């Protein structure tokens, strides 16, 4: 899951490292850090916004570690549905109970079908659908795609997925 946190640091050297180290130690992947040194809180602390991807099972442990080291956790929020993918399905989609498929994805809690357009040229012809799925993270997006692949396989639908865009280990 992707978490966005507002932390408050004491205005003394070494505090940022103190705040970020536990995230790395618990195998979190830090995505952004906004450190506003000149915007102090009424308490005299410095607010930092950190966004990172982490297993939800270690979230409480992370908060405990931060508090213990003197970093105040002012806000914890889950960044939902940050990852998105488009796919096309071709086949007898209407007969394949698409509603049920969408429900299966939506009921995961980590992914949703946020857009769908359907084109049906004639009753006996195959129809085509364009779907956009959002999920809380890349891993979850992969799991949602697996559900769709499974349905496509069972209902004999052709599923067209995007090429992998990212790529090189940059």
């Amino acid at each position, binding site marked *: 899951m992707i978490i966005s946190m507002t932390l408050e640091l004491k205005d003394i050297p070494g505090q940022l490292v103190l705040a970020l180290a536990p995230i790395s130690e618990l195998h979190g992947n830090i995505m952004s850090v906004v450190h506003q040194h000149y915007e102090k809180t009424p308490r005299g602390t410095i607010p930092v916004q950190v966004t990172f991807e982490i297993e939800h099972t270690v979230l409480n442990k992370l908060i405990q570690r931060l508090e213990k080291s003197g970093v105040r956790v002012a806000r914890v929020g889950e960044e939902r549905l940050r990852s998105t993918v*488009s*796919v*096309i399905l*071709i*086949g007898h989609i209407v007969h394949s109970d698409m509603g049920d498929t969408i429900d299966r994805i939506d009921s995961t809690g980590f992914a949703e079908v946020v857009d769908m*357009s359907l*084109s*049906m*040229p004639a009753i006996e*012809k*195959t*129809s*085509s*659908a*364009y779907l956009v799925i959002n999920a809380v993270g890349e891993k979850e997006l992969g799991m949602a795609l697996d559900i769709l692949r499974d349905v496509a396989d069972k209902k004999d639908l*052709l599923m*067209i*997925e*995007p*090429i*992998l*865009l990212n*790529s*090189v*280990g*940059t």
Partner: protein
Amino acid sequence: MKTIKISIIGFGAVGQGVARSLLSKQEYLKKQGYDIRVVGISDSKGSEINTKGIDLEDALNRKKQKGTVAIDTSDALELIRNVKHDIVVEVTPTNIGNGEPGLGNIRAALHAGRHVVTSNKGPLALRFTELKEAAEDNGLHLRYEATVGGAVPIFNLVHEALAGNSIIGIEGILNGTCNYILTRMEEERMPYELVLKEAQELGIAETDPTYDVEGIDSAIKLVIIANSIFGQNATYGDVDVTGITKITPEALELANKNNYVVKLVCEVRESRLTVAPRLVPKRHPLAVGGTLNVASILTDLAGRITISGKGAGSIETASSILSDILYIARNS
């Protein structure tokens, strides 16, 4: 002047393209210091052999008039084994069942101590490791740039120009027929069957289009890439293949509205080999239209390198073959 004696085995579109290119490039090649002499040409009916060098103009005319280049009945294997020459240019048609006659021709050539340049996908898709080792054991070159991507120099690019890079993955469009059909379907909003018919009338698709439209040709090329570039020992059965026959104009229209095109994409990544229709963003370098081929290579040092060009055509394919011949001329 370095004299290189070659044979051309198979005198169809590609073989004739090689002969035509050698004719038109004679002066150019001499200036480079190479006298490339064709000492034997073979087709399914027989051969022409002339150890002093065949008159290519004459051979091309005879093929056109009589349907064969043969003036004697000796077959390809006799020519390969018995006539002394340096390079066998093996350009017989691809047979993906057993690789013949190409496989036998290449084996015979390597056994007789001759370098091989080929455009024939069958033998390389079926027996890559065996042939590569046979060439290495005998200190010979086996070059096959023309097997994948026609004129597009994928293997030269990776093995020579990108030497030192680790290749992370390759994505490509390696079948011009499919790319033409998908491009036309999208542009004209025509159903698959109609565009296929048009492609057949234009000679872009075969009468039996299965080999292209079911993704078989793409998969075979992907196998050669996997073996040559990723050191795998893959065969056709290792590729997960989906063709383009089920694609509808409505699907292409939906893709288009959302800034995608649909392409039959070949992909090698982490030893997974896939050929399938994929959504490609319109502005992505892979989104080439018409009969063009393209390969996008992901490397660790150079990042992404993409090349595209003509994937078929007798002169275009001959360009890759000529480049392989010259490579051997320079390095032997």
